């Protein structure tokens, strides 16, 4: 294994950055899996998903990372990798799917709008790229989402995608059909672990990270409720006590109109030997054992005493010499 260490960043800047408040936010950071029907055509592409012939069902390891998403903390980058079938040597397929969850309908039937997701597929034989393309046809559906202000959210989604190379470097296409993505833990498991009611397919639970409150919204955006006590029947809006607008709420109301129930809804929520030279000189059972004075006499003591000043002078002289 070769390794190269690069130390090109200005250290001072790094230290200053350390002093800044942390801005890293993420929704999901979890492994998972993908099951998908894989189709390869090395000669031509298809005009529609309907004309794609049946392929091979595959299972793949996946990972869900909001930190790596180009959409920021409200998005998620899904990486999935699997060995593809074929007789032309062992090939490895890599799917990269980036979804803006704040813009994703959550009913499981309406696809995520174009522009709110991007996908690419890469097929390699060792280090050789045998296919690389972007999604030219298809859709992504978010079935279930458990979004977290931290990184313990979860996602379940479907996909059907056709990939082709716009640049024409790699002829043919690849299709990933009947795809099902699920993080581990899954949204339903997280709900179960947190004592939340099971998903009724029309409700999304969003952990706002604000005092443990949970924001609930239906997928139509027409109603929501917040955990806690809310004397205001109007729901979350206008409630005080937190960025989320959910703090202190309980119960029910139906405010928050216009919220989509997605992550964006709550995205903003977001002695002794005092005269000695140290304990080493005091290593007896009491402070009376201090004996440093006896060791530091004569020229050595004088040298030691003025060594800091001598070093300071040396540093200054070296600095001046370099400058000249």
């Amino acid at each position: 294994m070769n390794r190269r260490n690069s130390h090109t960043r200005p250290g001072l800047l790094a230290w200053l950055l350390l002093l800044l408040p942390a801005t890293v936010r993420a929704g999901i950071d979890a492994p998972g899996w993908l099951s998908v029907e894989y189709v390869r055509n090395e000669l031509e592409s298809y005009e529609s998903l309907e004309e794609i012939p049946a392929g091979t069902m595959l299972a793949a390891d996946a990972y869900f990372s909001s930190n790596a998403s180009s959409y920021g903390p409200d998005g998620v980058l899904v990486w999935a990798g699997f060995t593809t079938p074929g007789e032309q040597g062992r090939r490895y397929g890599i799917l990269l799917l980036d979804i803006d969850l704040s813009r994703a309908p959550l009913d499981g039937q309406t696809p995520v709008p174009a522009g709110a997701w991007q996908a690419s597929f890469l097929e390699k034989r060792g280090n050789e790229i045998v296919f690389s393309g972007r999604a030219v046809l298809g859709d992504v559906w978010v079935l279930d989402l458990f979004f977290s202000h931290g990184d313990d959210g979860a996602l379940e989604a479907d996909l059907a995608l056709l990939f082709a190379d716009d640049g024409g470097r790699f002829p043919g296409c690849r299709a990933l059909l009947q795809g099902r993505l699920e993080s581990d833990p899954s949204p339903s498991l997280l709900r179960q672990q947190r004592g939340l009611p099971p998903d009724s397919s029309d409700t999304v639970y969003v952990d706002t990270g604000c005092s443990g409150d949970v924001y609930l919204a239906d997928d139509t955006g027409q109603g929501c409720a917040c955990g806690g006590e809310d004397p205001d029947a109007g729901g979350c809006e206008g409630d005080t006590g937190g960025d989320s607008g959910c703090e202190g709420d309980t119960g029910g109301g139906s405010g928050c109109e216009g919220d989509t129930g997605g992550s964006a809804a709550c995205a903003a929520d977001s002695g002794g030997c005092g005269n000695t030279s140290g304990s080493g000189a005091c290593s007896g059972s009491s402070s009376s054992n201090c004996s440093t004075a006896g060791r530091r006499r004569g020229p050595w003591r004088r040298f030691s005493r003025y060594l800091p000043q001598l070093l300071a002078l040396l540093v200054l002289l070296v600095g001046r010499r370099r400058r000249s």
Partner: protein
Amino acid sequence: MNKTVKMILVGVLLLAGSPASRAGGTHFLVEPYTGMAFNLGYSSENAFGLESGAVLAVGGKFKGFPPRFYAYFRASQAFFGEDDVYVSSRAANVSVCREVRALMGGVRVVIPLWWELRLYLEVGGGQLFTDSHYREPGYSFGYSEKFGAVELGTGLNLRLFRWLSLGLVIDYTFVAEPEHGDLIATVLGEADRGSQPGWLRTVATLGLHF
């Protein structure tokens, strides 16, 4: 040498050598250090990096009780450079680059052993900020993460002068919150998907006491 760094160094040396600092026992410590950091959590990478940082500490001892107690604050940065990793499962070469910055605080106990030799014991906690980058022919990605972490350390320290000590510290830092995994570790096909990140470091310290 950077002018700012030079001025800080001159200031610290003058402060350490000032009559005031020699008048009483030392209670303050500025301890820059540098050394090696080992990446333990991401097994496929097997990387070691270079770490540098500084400790600020304040403390003292109880009368009649030899050990000294310090409250410390540490800021550090570890570069793991760029690792070229061979992924045997798919015969591919990839590149991983990680950087870890830490802001930690805790308690250090200094136990006198023999002559001016002393034993350090440390326990602390704080935040780790990591930057990770992955690259392989065809695609790349990067991400930043923040972890709550705990560090446990031990070391030996030699008090050469009243104002100066040299030391060697070994420290283990682990993430103290549940982690499901790590994206790069998963892409590399690690068995535990990088779900147990940890760092070991061995550093040489220069202690300035005043």
